């Protein structure tokens, strides 16, 4: 019963969502909306559960007091609770909330994202090797596209953007579509296995 009930619920909800996507029916779409609302509520509770886990782990680190861990963990808990209280009491449009959002959160996130540029340079240096013909084709295509996407490429050779566009529109598109179709059908198959309870490792334990 511990296994069968979640699988039955998953099946009913899954079928309801699929049918409501394809068919126009007021009762169906109402039912689907209710289920979506439940999903949001479950997510909110899951966030609560996850926050408890976060506090547990970091409280342990503070108690252990090893190195600077206590300081990092302490700042995490203080800022998490502080921002949550500020949002609840003053609201997210309040200028203090917006200040911390703009001054700390936005630049922090943007900085981590911007680090991709540095990581790609290091990964390219280390891994982009001409080992065989395939890798050589890949390297030449990458070089053309990188140059075609910036003004300097056009300065070097006026036809470079056109070559870049061809690479994107023909070989890239062919590959993309193939992978997209394969992944799409794979996704349907995976969904079907979950709905039918054939793949149930997400409930814990082995699949079958």
């Amino acid at each position, binding site marked *: 019963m511990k296994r069968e009930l979640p699988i039955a619920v998953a099946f009913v909800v899954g079928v309801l969502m*699929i049918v409501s*996507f*394809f*068919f*126009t*029916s007021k009762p*169906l779409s109402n039912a689907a909306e209710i289920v979506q609302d439940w999903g949001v509520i*479950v*997510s909110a509770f*899951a*966030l*609560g*559960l*996850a*926050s408890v*886990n*976060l506090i*547990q*782990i970091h409280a*342990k680190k503070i108690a252990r007091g090893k190195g600077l861990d206590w300081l*990092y963990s302490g700042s995490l808990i203080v800022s998490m609770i502080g921002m949550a209280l500020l949002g609840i009491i003053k609201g997210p449009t309040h200028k203090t909330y917006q200040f911390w959002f703009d001054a700390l959160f936005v630049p*922090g*996130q943007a900085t*981590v*994202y911007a*680090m*991709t540029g540095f*990581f*790609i340079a*290091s*990964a*390219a240096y*280390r891994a*982009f090797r001409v080992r065989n013909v395939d890798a050589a084709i890949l390297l030449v295509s990458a070089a053309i596209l990188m140059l075609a996407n910036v003004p300097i490429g056009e300065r070097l050779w006026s036809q470079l953007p056109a070559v870049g566009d061809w690479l994107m529109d023909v070989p890239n598109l062919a590959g*993309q579509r193939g*992978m*997209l*179709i*394969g*992944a799409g*059908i*794979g*996704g*349907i*198959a*995976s*969904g*079907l*296995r*979950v709905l039918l309870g*054939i*793949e149930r*490792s*997400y*409930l*814990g*334990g*082995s*699949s*079958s």
Partner: protein
Amino acid sequence: MTLAKGRVFSFWLLVVIIGCLLYSMWRAKKGRPISIRKIAGLDAIEEAIGRSTEMGRPVHYCPGIGGIGAVEAPQTFAGLAIMSHVARLTAKFDVPIIVTVRQPEVFPMAEETVRQAYLEEGKGDAYEPTNIRFLSSQQFAYAAALFGIMAREKPAANFMMGAFWAEALMLAEVGSEVGALQITGTAQLSQVPFFVASSDYTLIGEELFAAAAYLSRDQMQLGSILGQDLAKAIVALLIIIGVLTTSAGSDYLSKLMRK
């Protein structure tokens, strides 16, 4: 109850695809032997965990940073399915497994998957709940926290299977920097090149979805992989017919698809 405008063709195509999958699963259940090609990334899982055992360092696993309520949900489920297999092996070899999670709703599933895997291996006492960690629901806060975990705990094997976005390359690069053997997999096409460049093995697109079947060797699941190939053949046929009819000046098929 009628089919919504613009979704008629998609509906019937879905029916055909599901038909192919069910038929192949039924054939497999009847006992038709099914073999699928080797997937190097999945075969290397034991090697990676063995390496962790030898080096006395933990294994890190991330079931993607996608949730279970959107289009990337199958990737998350695939990530959890592979995680179940990995957790059983870490339990068997007595290697600690650190699981990091971004989506709150995935967290209880990850916890249960690992706990159950340890119980099934008879190592319930070795299960460490604080090793299943929710880091942050914010993408880059999660990434930054994981950089820290990688740098401090230096996993010898790093598994990242599921949906990833811009953090994919950074995480794999940090993994490579700490010397982890990395097995990654995603169906997020924009991230595949990054994983390929910085991991030891990468599951590309549908390989990720085939992983649970591949690892479990369950006939029904293997049957569904065969069904996928059948469905792909039908879609390929549709493409060929589409190209031929469109080239001949007919827009019948494209109109039909828009219905």
